[in-house]
């Protein structure tokens, strides 16, 4: 699976990329802010966007909203990966069109499985 990982923290970006590539066996592209994410999603058409919330220039919620508003990127699944763990924030993410919400800190060894379970649950629904 081709995954677009949007994360502004370099450390978390490295860890998550490593986990997705080495543990999950996925191809990973990276973006460091909302606008980069939009541009990458439009050109590369990934199979999944793993989106942080707190990003510079354009935050994750607004980025997701724009992805879903654009017919070219509307169908790309989005999963939030965020330390913003309040119930209303999770609810907001889901209401914008995300399939799931993975909280930080995450276990890198189980991150790929968590993503697969979310995609499977969505496909079954």
């Amino acid at each position, binding site marked *: 699976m081709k995954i677009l990982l949007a994360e502004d923290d370099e450390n*978390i970006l490295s860890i998550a990329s490593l986990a997705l590539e080495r*543990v999950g066996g996925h191809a990973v592209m990276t973006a460091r802010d909302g606008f980069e994410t939009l541009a990458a999603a439009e050109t590369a058409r990934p199979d999944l966007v793993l989106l942080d919330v707190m990003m510079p220039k354009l935050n994750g919620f607004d980025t997701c909203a724009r992805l879903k508003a654009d017919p070219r990127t509307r169908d790309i699944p989005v999963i939030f990966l965020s330390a913003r763990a309040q119930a209303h924030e999770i609810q907001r993410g889901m209401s914008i069109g995300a399939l799931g919400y993975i*909280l930080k800190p995450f276990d890198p*060894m189980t991150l790929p499985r968590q993503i697969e379970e979310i995609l499977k649950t969505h496909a079954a629904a």
Partner: protein
Amino acid sequence: MRRLKDVMGVLKLQHLRIRTRLLAAGVLLGALAAANPLFVRHHTRLLSEFHAARDAAWNLRHAIQDLNRGLAKAEAYLESPDTAALRRLDALTGQVTAGAGKYDVSASNALAVQYGVWRERARLAPTQERRNAVLQVSHLSEGIDRTIRVKEEESEGRLAKYIRRVKRASIMAGGLVFLGFTAFVLSLWFTLLPDLAALIAATREFKLGNLNHRADVPAGTETAELAAAFNEMAESIKERTEKLDETHRQKSDFVSTVSHELRTPLTSIKGSLGLILGGVTGAVPQEVARMLKITEKNTNRLIRLVDDVLDIAKIEAGAIRLKFDKHSIADVLSHAVQGVDSLARAREVNLTCDWPENSALVVVDRDRIEQVLMNLLSNAIKFTEAGGTVHVYCENEVADGGGTGAQSRVLVHVEDTGRGIPAEFMEQLFEKFHQAESSVNHAQEGTGLGLAIAKGLVEEHGGKIWATSVAGAGSRFTFSIPWNGTEFAEVRRKDVA
């Protein structure tokens, strides 16, 4: 009704103070009440005088009749003198002349004179002269009788006229009272009732959360003052609510920001440790792996502590937002049991659960109640030796409805056969950073906030939590959830663990 309302408006009665209206009504009734005894006394006196006059006339006319009858027999009195009869005639004449004087003085005097003439001639004058004198007396007395009749008729006419006047005055007074009272009632109906309705509506709107709603009542009356006081209070409450909302929002933002700031570096730490220990970056020497496992364990503990501290901060700030929905308590129990199943297996503790045939349908934030259960279950498992048992069950407690105010509730129990809790620790069991287990190992596993959070979450649901324990034998933690007592869920036992 609208015309009456318009009249009220024209008369500007809506601005008239209620106490003024009450005063006016009171003055009117007071005046009528004060005039009433005077009127009754005057009326009674007049009637008494009339009756007395009528009685006197009646007596006089009887006396005249007796006199005439007596005079008709006078001849016989003279033939064989009956002095008693003659003295009675004298008395009757005296009575008639005295009474007749009130009606006709000249006739009364003439009668007395003529009777005097007859008496003088009574025995000595020739019969015809005596008879002529008697006839004169009879004639005069009949004249007086007629005069009395005329006077009586005039008096009755005056009485009738007076009674008619009294009736008219009574009707007018009654009408005045009725109009006054009606005006008073209508003034209240069209002013006080709408004012009160406006106040009640404003109070209800405020209660429903419309903090901008104000009571609109025309100025001038006491209800306007009440409405003004209500509006001031509403404004004050609105300001305080807005300040409180702002404070809550700031607290919530703070909690959210702190949560994010703490979790971000912890993500890097946990993530890199996970990759290293998972072998992704290559083989790790055993001793290095052991050290890294200690780091990972404490990182996880730190993460739990961050979660718990943020939860407790939210509970204490009143910033915790629960998402209420109906759930089968059996489902919730079952899911929580599944969550700790692996922990129980790892510690070789038997984990069992049970619930009534009819699973109550409760209104809860499912995630939070599961959090409470997971906390109680993981504590129970941690403090139970291998081979021991942790049993979770619930019971439906229906209120008797006997007016005691007790509510139906569901009780959830987590019972273990662990080492129990010493009595000296029971009082502070649900306080922050209190841990009954003095062993360093167990203390390191927990944050000391779990039971405080459980208590906070249960109380946010309107329930209670408590514990009983016997040192060396085990403990039972129980919490209650309010329940309406009538709703049950279909329990499909094959779908739950």
